[in-house]
């Protein structure tokens, strides 16, 4: 199988991240999600040193979507209308290589000249929308006449009503093949909580011990409560600009060195050939085929943790350790710590920072490269960061470079 990586011209390098913004992030904020979106978008535009009149592109994931409750807080049309943007290009939808696939779309729009400054956003309000009832199973609100169709027909009749169940089976297979343990996987959660303690915007900041982790109730083995991210309300915005247009902006442009968008296996939660790798395998491999940089050049890695196991799989997919070796790699938590060889999820991830659904990782990668991390800033002068999002059959990643 060939990967479209060895192209002589890598167009993504003509695009850069130039600004970021985030709304308040929290549990049950009871705020209009469109208002949260406005907060994030206006902050990102200002951060880049742009005016809203400069924005000529708009991109989002997953676009307007009424269910599951709170999964999508704003779509393209609402944001264009709210900000009265004059758009030359826009795109919003769920069928992408992960949530950050929407940012890759923006990169391509800028690289091909369809737009100069693309505002990318992702808004969630799952915490408020779910109310006091907690996290619900897919289809559980369907009533007696509900009938499952599409992929859901193969899982819902069996009570496999959540990605927690589907990905737990992938983790279990990894445990079986490679001897990975809960004590090893715990370090993804413990590291996230440790970093969240240094991030004033994270939702769960109290210290967590291995004993706390092991004592937590099980959700779907081997996942306990602390292996699952926490639904929140919040919006994140990222500005992607052409490098030519980025030159005179407020901040040093973060060039998109490479992207990974490949999915070569069957796009399915249970039919994927190697459940231990998920689609991340193909996206990660493609990313490194599009750059001369290597994992050793990465100063921090912001890797999706909707469930803790997904971060283990991204560490393997991106070559920070060998296939099957992520358990021993993270054990003890020193390699992935802020002062470790590859600091991971320096903001607390979605496990402790809140489920901003993919965009939080790119926001943090940019924060670190601009050295705005405050107490959680990695040491030295970080120049290269990777942001990766998605799990199961969805995965996409971007490598950012500050010159």
């Amino acid at each position: 199988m060939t990967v479209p990586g060895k192209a002589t011209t890598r167009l993504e390098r003509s695009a850069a991240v130039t600004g970021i913004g985030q709304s308040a992030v929290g549990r049950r904020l009871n705020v209009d999600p469109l208002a949260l979106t406005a907060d994030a978008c206006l902050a990102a535009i200002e951060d880049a040193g742009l005016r809203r009149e400069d924005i000529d592109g708009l991109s989002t994931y997953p676009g307007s979507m009424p269910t599951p409750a709170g999964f999508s807080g704003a779509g393209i049309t609402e944001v264009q209308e709210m900000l009265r943007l004059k758009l030359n290009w826009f795109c919003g939808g769920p069928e992408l290589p992960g949530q950050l696939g929407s940012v890759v779309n923006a990169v391509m729009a800028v690289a091909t000249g369809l737009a100069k400054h693309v505002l990318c956003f992702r808004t969630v309000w799952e915490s408020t929308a779910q109310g006091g009832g907690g996290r619900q199973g897919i289809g559980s609100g369907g009533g007696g006449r509900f009938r499952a169709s599409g992929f859901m027909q193969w899982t819902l009749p069996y009570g496999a009503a959540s990605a927690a169940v589907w990905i737990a089976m992938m983790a279990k297979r990894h445990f079986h093949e490679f001897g990975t343990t809960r004590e090893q996987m715990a370090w993804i959660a413990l590291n996230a909580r440790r970093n969240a303690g240094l991030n004033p915007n994270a939702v769960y900041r109290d210290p967590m011990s291995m004993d706390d982790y092991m004592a937590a109730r099980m959700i779907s083995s081997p996942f306990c409560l602390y292996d699952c991210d926490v639904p929140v309300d919040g919006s994140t915005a990222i500005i992607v600009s052409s490098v030519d247009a980025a030159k005179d902006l407020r901040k040093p442009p973060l060039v998109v060195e490479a992207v990974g968008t490949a999915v070569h296996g069957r796009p399915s939660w249970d039919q994927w050939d190697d459940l231990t790798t998920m689609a991340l395998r193909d996206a990660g491999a493609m990313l490194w085929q599009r750059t001369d940089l290597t994992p050793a050049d990465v100063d921090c890695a912001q890797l999706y943790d909707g469930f803790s196991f997904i971060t283990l799989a991204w560490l393997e997919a991106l070559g920070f350790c060998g296939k099957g070796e992520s358990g021993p790699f993270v054990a003890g938590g020193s390699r992935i710590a802020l002062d470790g060889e590859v600091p991971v999820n320096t903001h607390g991830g979605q496990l402790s920072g809140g489920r901003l659904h993919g965009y939080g990782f790119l926001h943090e990668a940019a924060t670190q490269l601009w050295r705005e991390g405050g107490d959680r800033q990695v040491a030295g002068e970080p120049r290269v960061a990777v942001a990766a999002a998605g799990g199961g059959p969805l995965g996409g990643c971007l490598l950012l470079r500050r010159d």
Partner: protein
Amino acid sequence: MTKPSRLLPLVTPENEHYWQGGARDELCFLCCQDCSHYVHPPAPLCPECLSRKLAPRAVSGRAVVHTFTVNHQPWIPGFDPPYVVAIVEIEEQPSLRLTTNVKNCAIEDVSIGMPVQVCFEDLGDGVFLPLFEPRA
């Protein structure tokens, strides 16, 4: 043990062989009449040889647990945890997998590699859910 209150699938001409085969105690998949490849979930053509000559065929019902989880979270009202969700591989073809429940055995006795055999639960509306139990 009371039967869980399950969500039902929408039965269509494309999937009825799968959901209704249990009425005859048969686990059925589409099979390519040209290259004998089993196709699941159902599709209009064979992904191996692109033939459109697909027809339902019953398999032995023997399978092996590829992976599983013990679910403890109450996702669906009336479908009470704990219960085992598994992905099993059908004996006839390594890539022929499905998500299911393992029943008629203690939860702690389920393991990867465990030989299992199909059994069916009549959900009404003509739907017979393929489940798996330890092979005798």
